């Protein structure tokens, strides 16, 4: 259970990090950020990168900034830092709601939200949050920087658009529209363990408190985060989400697999049940935001 040997690099700028990654492109370079997924993978000899480029000493990457767009999370912002950030919570409550489910506080003290996105574990909470909020990841490589939307970023299990010679410097989680409530629910075998299924939900209500939009993002039931627009399940009056139609829409979108933790059928069942509960919670929050006037969303369409 000891990691295999590797050559260690401690760059002091992003450009230097990118150059190091590019220079060793054929020797399996990896970026070391929080390392809370990478180090155990190395210890279990499931990963053996020849070079580790440690970005922990790069200045300026640890910011959590609230912009008019949403919340921009730097590559070195630890999960715990994002979770505790009150301004980020006001802008995008789903961040804190989801982060409370990410492993244990001890892991969240070191693990980074951006690193978790790049790692692309199908059970990672933040992947569903980014996908549901139409977020994007900023990548810097030898040819400059690019922004990749969540829709293209997650390619498959443990596979993302991030290339070996790139550094993911930030991710932006977009602010949901006014009148939106959110919730994150998951079920794991053990507290803090990987979820057998998890659901992030966004429900938007108008000034008459009728539901105008409902979307969910699911983890552990597909090769990556699965976003399902439940618009077709909204009843004509806009007052409710039809549960039967919701289950049909979920079943069309998800593709759970059997493993030692849960059968595919059980994961499917969890997707149905957790979605129903998460929608209810998000709906309650949306209503109280409208009624209580505590809406932190954008002003567009506000009552």
């Amino acid at each position, binding site marked *: *259970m*000891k*990691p*295999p*040997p*590797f*050559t*260690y690099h*401690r760059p002091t700028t992003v450009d230097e990090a990118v150059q190091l990654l590019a220079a060793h492109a054929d020797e399996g370079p990896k970026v*070391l950020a929080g*390392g*809370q997924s990478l*180090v*155990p993978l*190395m*210890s*279990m000899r499931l990963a053996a990168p020849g070079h*580790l480029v*440690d970005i*922990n*000493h790069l200045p300026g990457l640890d910011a959590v900034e609230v912009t008019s767009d949403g919340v921009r999370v730097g590559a070195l912002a630890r999960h*715990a830092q994002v979770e505790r950030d009150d301004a980020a919570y006001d802008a995008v409550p789903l961040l804190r709601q989801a982060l409370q489910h990410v*492993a*244990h*506080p*001890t*892991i969240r*003290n*070191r693990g980074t939200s951006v690193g978790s996105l790049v790692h692309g574990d199908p059970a990672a909470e933040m992947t569903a949050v980014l996908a549901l909020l139409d977020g994007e990841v900023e990548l810097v490589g030898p040819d400059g920087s690019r922004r990749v939307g969540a829709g293209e970023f997650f390619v498959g299990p443990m596979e993302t658009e991030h290339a070996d010679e790139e550094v993911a410097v930030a991710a932006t989680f977009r602010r949901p529209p006014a009148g939106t409530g959110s919730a994150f629910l998951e079920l794991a075998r053990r*507290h*803090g363990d990987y979820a057998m299924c998890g659901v992030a939900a966004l429900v938007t209500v108008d000034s008459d408190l009728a539901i105008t939009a409902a979307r969910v993002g699911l983890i552990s039931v597909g090769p990556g985060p699965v976003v399902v627009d439940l618009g077709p399940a909204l009843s004509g009056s806009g007052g409710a989400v039809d549960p039967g139609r919701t289950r049909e829409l979920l079943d069309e979108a998800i593709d759970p697999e059997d493993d030692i933790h849960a059968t595919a059928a059980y994961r499917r069942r969890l997707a149905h049940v957790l979605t129903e509960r998460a929608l209810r919670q998000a709906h309650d929050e949306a209503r109280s935001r409208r009624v209580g006037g505590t809406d932190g969303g954008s002003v567009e369409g506000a009552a």
Partner: protein
Amino acid sequence: MTTPVSVSLVVNGVRHELELPARRLLSDALRHDLRLTGTHVGCEHGVCGACTVLVDGRPMRSCLLFAVSLDGAEITTVEGCQAPDGGMGPVQQAFHECHALQCGFCTPGFITTITAYLDDNPDPTRDEAREAISGNLCRCTGYVNIVSAVERAAELIGDRPGTGGA
């Protein structure tokens, strides 16, 4: 292929300049290189919490950290959680009073985790105490007495008379 890397660590207030293989885990650097064997290694992949130490005041799994990545960090191990006079610190005293350990293997991870937790949350409820230790596994005591020890430690740190505890 891999040359040793220089790293400077402050461990329990003492600065150490080390030359370490890059792949040295912090848990092994503490135990093997610095002979601080209070930090225990259980699962070595971040599940059990036995190796928890404080890095710049925050609890982290030392088996999930490369020592060379922590250049300049301040680390507190269970050896650093004792009282200034060398006696038991408040969390250790609470574990003693509440019979919160049997074999003691997991205890260093609990002591460090709880020490940091009580810094941020000096007066936790029993449910909060349970949540605070949820990332640490104990295979013999069970958790009831450990939860009591969190409450008792909070009393000791706050210099309050015992109400709960053992």
